[in-house]
């Protein structure tokens, strides 16, 4: 069904009344939101003393405005308004929970807000940016992120192998599919304790004992930079490989069987069949999986925080775990928020470039 736009003059009187009512509802809702939020801002700034104890009134006014907007859409646009209504809750939720905090965070990022300071919050211009540029901990963490992102390719290779295995006709395939998915279902915090703090414990941990039996005399998984980094990567991989694997498995199952059968008839070996047919056909899924994993990897923090706190000497630190320390241990809200905002921009730029590269590459290949 197509909706036809009709000028107001052509509408029947009831429709015009409904249209006007819609506008009024939206206006009322908007005025209510502006007034309540404005009063709260004035109250918080100490200009008025209306006794607001929390920001709930503004939240309720925002919800009321959302309802007014929805009502207005239905009244003014009819069926197309009803269709928009389906999107509206998600849109308003995103604005409230993502866009507003990001903008609000940006405002905080340009302040010297420290929770212990008695002098309150002050705008400090570009000081936080300058501090960030000269902060060796930030650059160290960013460099580590490069290594962690590289590790995603190793995760991908292992995941591909497992996906091929689970796609093949093996015994207890269903069981293995579930079993290999289990690490993904575990909280990284639990993994940190079960593996990093128990299995890899250097005195009684089974992995440490195995390593000793294999001839490593002084077992220490977290004392030298590269071994510590590799240990974190291994734990992260254990949790993350199933995610890539399940995406690749879905891709493998969607591949046309005819092409592979034709190759077999033509005498292609297993390796040729994989390298010349399966792998290229899987490229779109592979690239999606890798890009998604890189996005997740750039947010790596929980395993690091729980197992090494970024040590030894920052060797395993990630940008997120550094931001976490800066905010949580040092109450440096302003600077930590600036770090988070800058890192968000870096991730967006990096992922955009990566996506561009991927789509160009795909165009070339396909």
């Amino acid at each position, binding site marked *: 069904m197509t909706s036809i736009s009709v000028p107001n003059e052509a509408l029947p009187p009831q429709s015009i009344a409904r249209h006007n009512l819609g506008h009024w509802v939206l206006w009322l809702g908007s005025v209510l939101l502006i007034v309540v939020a404005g009063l709260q801002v004035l109250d918080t700034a100490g200009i008025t003393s209306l006794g607001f104890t929390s920001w709930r009134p503004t939240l309720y006014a925002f919800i009321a405005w959302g309802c007014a907007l929805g009502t207005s859409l239905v009244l003014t646009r009819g069926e197309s308004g009803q269709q928009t209504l389906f999107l509206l809750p998600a849109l308003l939720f995103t604005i409230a929970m993502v866009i507003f905090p990001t903008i609000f965070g940006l405002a905080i990022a340009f302040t010297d807000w420290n929770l*212990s300071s008695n002098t309150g919050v002050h705008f400090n211009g570009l000081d936080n940016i300058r501090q960030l540029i000269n902060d060796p901990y930030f650059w160290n963490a960013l460099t580590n992120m490069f290594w962690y992102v590289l590790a995603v390719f190793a995760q991908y290779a292992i995941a591909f192998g497992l996906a091929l295995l689970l796609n093949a006709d093996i015994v207890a395939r269903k069981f293995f599919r579930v079993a290999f998915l289990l690490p993904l279902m575990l909280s990284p915090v639990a993994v940190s304790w079960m593996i990093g703090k128990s299995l890899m414990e250097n005195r009684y941990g089974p992995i440490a004992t195995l390593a000793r039996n294999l001839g490593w005399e002084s077992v*220490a998984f977290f*004392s030298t930079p590269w071994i510590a980094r590799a240990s974190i990567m291994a734990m992260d991989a254990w949790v993350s490989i199933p995610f890539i694997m399940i995406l690749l498995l879905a891709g493998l199952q969607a591949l046309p069987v005819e092409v592979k059968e034709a190759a077999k008839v033509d005498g292609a070996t297993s390796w040729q069949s994989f390298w010349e047919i399966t792998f290229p056909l899987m490229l779109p899924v592979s690239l999606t999986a890798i890009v998604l994993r890189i996005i997740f990897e750039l947010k790596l923090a929980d395993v690091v925080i729980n197992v090494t706190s970024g*040590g030894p000497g920052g060797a395993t630190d990630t940008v997120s775990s550094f931001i976490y320390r800066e905010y*949580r*241990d040092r109450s440096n809200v302003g600077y930590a928020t600036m770090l988070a905002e800058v890192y968000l921009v870096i991730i967006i730029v990096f992922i955009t470039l990566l996506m561009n590269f991927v789509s160009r590459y795909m165009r070339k290949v396909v």
Partner: protein
Amino acid sequence: MKVDAYSKMMAIQASRRDLLKGAATATAVSALSATGLVGTSTRQAYAADDLRAAILKIPGVGKGSPGDADWQKVGEMCLGATKAAIKEGEFKGVELSFMGLNNQNLHNLLFRGFLKPWEAYTGAKITWIDLAQADYNPRLQQAIASGTIDFDLVEMGAPLEGDVCGKGLTSEMPDWVKKQIEFDDLVNYLKPPVGTWNGKQYRVTIDGDCHNFNYRTDVFADAELAKAWKDGGGKGDWGVPKTWQQVQAVTKFMHGKKFKGKDLYGYLDPLKGWGGFAFYFLGSRASAYAKHPDDKAWLFDIDTMKPRVNNPAWVRAIQDVVDMIPNGPPDQLNADPGNTGFQQFLAGTGTMLSWWGDIGSNAKTNDTSVIGDVCGFSILPGSDDVYNSKTGKWDTLASGPNYSPNMAYLGWGVYVMARVDADAKKQKAAWSAAAHLGGKDLSLWCAAYPSGFQPYRNSHFNVDEWVGAGYDKAFITSYLNSEKDSYNHPNAAIEPRIPGIFQYYSVAEDELAKIYAGKNTAQAGADAIAKAWDAITDKIGRDSQVKLYKASLGL
């Protein structure tokens, strides 16, 4: 488990022990079981000494770690002071929120048990906010900064008084509470200015903090090691080190040796950060070098807050740690103080350790401890020389080595938040709960068993009471003396009660981690810490920090 059921069970166990252990035990145990069976134990049922003796037998030293039923029982038996001050059901309808820690399943978990009988008697209800050590400071700071204090009572350390009491967020202690908790019984160093702000008293002290020196008596009594020490040209007789110089030498000597079939390690340094708390352990190594008897300050210059952390004394302490890394257990770079104390030393790894008094109270009463019979204590080691910040020279004191126990954290206290002041009934209830937790008798039990708290009252240093509980006399004398001598030491290194102190410590931990990992020298790393500390001071406000630092040192 319900208290009544527990009491009956204890009574049954007790009668078995009566047969085995004779009349002396029977007297105390029958008092306990009788009280438990009627379920209305009060202090009146005992003479004060009997009560103290009876609670110290719950569950009894060497009889496993205490649990919730034990905590409830102790809480019930110590209700006498509450009953004298509060009518039954007086706080009916009052709801209180209590924020504290859950470290090692202690702190708040004990408070719950202790306060359960208090809730039953008074009619008040408490809800709990449990926090891990590392989450504690940020949660508190966020609540303060965002004006969302959602708790009526808080378990808090004195170093944070600047952040909380200094902002007028706490309720002033009423006189009846001071009387109920027998305030004068506190050891001197925990009396005002600790617990006060602008002359007002805010804190019910439930802990006294200092680092003492814990060591393995069996290692230092071993003839083979003594011979090896002598043969290797070790200085003096083989024995417990008295100075950090000796600690270094002994740790180096132990490297590569075996004792009772296990690798032998000397002093255990925690090399991984612990939300700022790991810095105390460097402080314990540095205090003998940096705290001069003629100078009250050791962390900052008094008049300017210029950090001293990069002076030769602190750099020497840092270098000491770095020098011992090759002699420590593998993976020590990933060991925080929780690991060194509980997973290493109590579990039999390492010979020497600086820690809070928890090691002593856990050595014989914690199920995971294997060193209960071979653990000795002293105040922190001294130093042959001490750095004089005023002259910039190292002094050798005529009195011998310089000792300076590190009064790390100044102990936990319970604080009542000012938000209860508007409601007189709620305020009284909150203070009553705090006073119950800070009661004289209950505190003795906390000092003797795993609780997260160490002795902090003069009355805690009666060795006979501890022996009556089942402690070995030599062990407990050694432990209590190490605590008492630290508290009363004339050259103790006092923790500054200034806002944001954990920001300083946390930044230092990051820099220290780089030094320990070999990415920076001790001096360059210490300079970086000093620079970061200066920036924090400027951010928080140098003038106010100077003022508060002076006040915290009693100047």
